[in-house]
């Protein structure tokens, strides 16, 4: 009996083998290229096969009847067709179309440096910003090794593509930072207020940015703070210039981090030679708290608040006061608060709500002059995004900004009180349209109304990108950008229009195999710039918007993480040609903040045996101009070029202890930022002048970072700057 069953089943088996269907075919892309590795199978069965290197697949099936043949490959639209299995052979040639996927699709890169994405193709990561020698842990310092920027030592701020520092705006988690820099003495470099380690990603746009951002003629820097921390931890930092303490407590869906820091440059300044006499070395105390809470499935609420107090007294020679240095005393208090929520509303809508508050007070005292400046800023924004289809998405939102500025100056017995407050209401909308995964356009517009100037303006924005191959693409961007005149003018008049810049940017980018090359051409036309009549600064009725200017040039960027093992370098070069006729310029002239040639070479190397990460950074900016009132040519003098060779060394002593040292301008190259002159000539009719020097030729810092966690294996690797 058993045998019989076996026999019958064998027969049956034989029969089924007999009615075998062979399915074969060739899989190609639209351009005819074969697609090896493609999966071809009968849906709902275990019968199928993979395509060989010629794109040919072939498999047998014992099934009969109607089935669906599926041909699939990751990133491509899957193919399916009904087949009738009758025991003969079937041949199906298949062409697969690339599926549309925004992640792999082209992105607009004109004018933009993005960091923080985990993708390899990205040009600069947050760690890069931190490990760049010479940045000295300053966000803005690190950005100055990217193309499109000029190093202006006496300011320290961002100067982008022929724009002034005021033309750049900083946003944290979507909100405007009204006072992003620390206060500094005249002609001394300022640093950013924020610790770079707060941020997980940055977008640095040097032109042609989205309609979401207004009130910036040159650039926007978008900083995104860290999301949820991984675990509880305590960070202790001991620096040659101060102490920092941070503690993080995490719970299920939220976390809180508190930071306290104290910096005092006195011990350092006693050791290192300084170019100025400091009656009181810079000293600062700050406290910050940040809070994160997940809400629902997708929402994340963030809150950050900081309080800073700092001050110093430096002896500077003041124009007009002769050659004896006088004390310049500054005390600054800054409170900043930032709130944001982003998440999904229902299935498709996403919302980003953000707001910030700033209160910044500077008290300045020199000679017989006492000055107090107060800035209060409120910012509110709400942005909605809606994907109408996979290829078409819409973004729109509204923004409210209030800025109140008051200045009180007491010169001997005279008192000058001035203030103004402006409220701006803005709305913007933008559509992003993918014609294919190779071609994208973004069209948008922004409307702003300023109640102080009583003016409306409209800014169109347009950008597009086209992918030529998987690795290379072209992008272009165009737009009108408006910004209200400087606060110092608005204090005295509201009879002005916003200033305007039109951007034209064209860029090429190619990255493959850990190497990236980028080239960008740009042209910027400045219109409606504020112009003073002669030197009548105190005659606000003479201010008008007849100023003009232009900036044009190109940027080159090359990054290579591959050629040198354990080494990584980039070279950035920018050429800038710019002239303006604005403010007190008697003629069209090159402004003082523009360098024709800017070069930065950054190299980093990991020494495994020594558990050390070393960095070298070379910077060069060609001589800028400055004005000598004793000369008949306006802005006719040239200062020294800026040169600096910076080094840094980080050593991983223990898994949770990092020792770090860095020297800026190790060669001690003399840098000088022109001369400043008195307002009035001396008895012999000559305006007296003094050289503007950096506060010291070299700067060094030593630090030790300790991280304590329960597991004890985290470290502040990201802190190595």
């Amino acid at each position, binding site marked *: 009996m058993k045998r019989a069953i076996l026999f019958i089943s064998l027969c049956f088996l034989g029969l089924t083998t007999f009615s075998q269907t062979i399915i074969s075919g060739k899989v190609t892309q639209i351009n005819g290229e074969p697609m090896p*590795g493609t999966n071809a199978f009968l849906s709902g069965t275990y019968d199928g096969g993979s395509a060989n290197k010629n794109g040919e697949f072939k498999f047998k099936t014992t099934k009969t009847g109607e089935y669906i043949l599926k041909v699939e490959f990751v990133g491509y639209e899957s193919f399916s067709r009904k087949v009738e299995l009758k025991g003969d052979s079937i041949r199906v040639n298949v062409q697969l179309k690339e599926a549309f996927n925004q992640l792999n699709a082209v992105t607009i890169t004109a004018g933009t440096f993005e960091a923080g994405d985990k*993708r390899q193709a990205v040009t600069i990561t947050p*760690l890069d910003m931190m490990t760049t020698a010479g940045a000295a842990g300053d966000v803005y310092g690190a950005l100055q090794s990217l193309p499109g920027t000029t190093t202006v030592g006496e300011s320290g701020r961002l100067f982008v593509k022929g724009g002034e520092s005021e033309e750049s705006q900083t946003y944290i988690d979507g909100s405007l930072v009204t006072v992003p820099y620390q206060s500094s003495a005249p002609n001394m470099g300022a640093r950013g207020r924020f610790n770079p380690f707060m941020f997980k990603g940055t977008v640095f746009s040097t032109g042609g940015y989205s309609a979401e951002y207004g009130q910036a003629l040159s650039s926007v820097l978008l900083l995104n703070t860290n999301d949820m921390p991984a675990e509880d931890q305590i960070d202790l930092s001991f620096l040659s210039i101060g102490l920092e303490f941070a503690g993080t407590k995490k719970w299920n869906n939220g976390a809180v981090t508190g930071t306290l820091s104290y910096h005092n440059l006195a011990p350092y300044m006693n050791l290192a030679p300084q170019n100025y006499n400091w009656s009181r070395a810079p000293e600062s105390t700050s406290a910050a708290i940040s809070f994160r809470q997940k809400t629902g499935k997708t929402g994340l609420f963030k809150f950050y608040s900081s309080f800073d107090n700092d001050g110093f007294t430096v002896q500077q020679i003041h124009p007009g006061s002769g050659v004896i240095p006088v004390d310049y005393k500054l005390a600054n208090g800054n409170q900043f608060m930032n709130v944001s929520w982003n998440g999904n509303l229902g299935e498709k809508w996403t919302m980003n709500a953000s707001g910030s508050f700033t209160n910044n007070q500077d008290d300045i005292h020199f000679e017989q002059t006492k000055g107090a400046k107060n800035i209060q800023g409120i910012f509110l924004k709400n942005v909605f995004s809606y994907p109408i289809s996979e290829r078409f998405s819409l973004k729109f939102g509204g923004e409210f900004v209030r800025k109140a500025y008051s200045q009180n100056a007491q010169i001997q017995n005279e008192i000058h009180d001035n203030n103004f407050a402006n409220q701006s209401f803005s709305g913007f909308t933008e559509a992003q349209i993918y014609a294919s995964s190779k071609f994208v356009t973004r069209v948008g517009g922004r409307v702003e109304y300023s109640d102080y100037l009583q003016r409306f303006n409209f800014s169109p924005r347009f950008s597009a990108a086209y992918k030529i191959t998987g690795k290379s693409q072209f992008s272009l961007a165009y737009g009108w950008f408006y910004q209200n005149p400087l606060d110092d003018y608005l204090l005295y008049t509201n009879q002005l229009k916003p200033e305007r810049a039109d951007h034209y940017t064209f860029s090429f980018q190619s990255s493959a*195999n850990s190497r990236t090359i980028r080239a960008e051409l740009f042209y910027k036309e400045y219109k409606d710039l504020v112009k003073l009549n002669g030197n009548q600064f105190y005659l606000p009725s003479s201010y008008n918007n007849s100023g003009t200017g232009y900036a044009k040039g190109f940027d080159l960027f090359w990054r290579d993480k591959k050629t040198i093992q354990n080494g990584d370098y980039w070279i950035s070069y920018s050429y800038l040609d710019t002239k303006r006729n604005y403010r007190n310029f008697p003629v069209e002239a090159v402004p003082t903040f523009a360098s024709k040639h800017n070069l930065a070479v950054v190299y980093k190397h990991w020494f495994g045996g020594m558990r050390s990460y070393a960095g070298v950074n070379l910077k060069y900016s060609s001589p800028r101009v400055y004005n000598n009132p004793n000369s008949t040519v306006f802005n006719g003098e040239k200062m020294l070029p800026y040169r600096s060779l910076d080094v840094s060394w980080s050593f991983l002593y223990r898994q949770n202890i990092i020792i770090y040292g860095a020297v800026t301008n190790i060669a001690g190259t003399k840098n000088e930022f022109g001369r400043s002159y008195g307002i009035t000539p001396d008895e012999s009719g000559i305006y007296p002048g003094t050289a503007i020097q950096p506060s010291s030729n070299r700067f060094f810092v030593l630090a030790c970072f300790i991280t304590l966690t329960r597991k004890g294996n985290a470290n502040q*690797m990201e802190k190595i700057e």
Partner: protein
Amino acid sequence: MKKIILSLAVVLVSLVSMAQKPEYMQAMGETLGGFSTCKNVEDFQALGNKFEMIANAEKGEWLPLYYHAECYILMSFVELSDPEKKDGYLDVAGKSIEKLLTMVPGEAEIYALQAFYFTGRLVVNPMERGQEFGQLTGQATGKALAIDPTNPRAKMMQLQMNIGSAPFMGVDPKSFCPQAKELLANWDNFKPKSAIHPNWGKDQVEGIVKGCE
């Protein structure tokens, strides 16, 4: 007693469900045999294709999807030159793992596989990703071991992470040798739930132990 009944019930249920699908068991068994002959990206992709096909036919089973993800993680390790390709393979694995986590939320093997996946992401660029993905790997192994403290694959992931990061941390990698030897000695004490449940990793531990000598 209750525990025994419960585990008996579990065994029964799984036996019954498997008995109902001899074809599935056979297909899985044959496809799993393919791992031993895989040498390059193409081989793993072909194998991953088979698992994908089975997953497609057996929507309620998590194992085909598990092995599909494993194939794509292995592809990222086998691919030597192009970091973008590596990330591309890991993207596919990541999607399968996400699906698995919703299909069978309390399964230690899936977290162990997730740890493997995070290690893959780390290896693409250790310098930039070390911190973040080291932590994520640690978290995933932690979850796996919290569910099943005996899971040898989770232990191996933890061990590999510790050895990999040792040179950066100023620790002698050989200090983990006793742990590796112990893991290898006890490897066979872990009994997979069925012939087609995950049972890989012994070779890797053998490799680590070999490196100790």
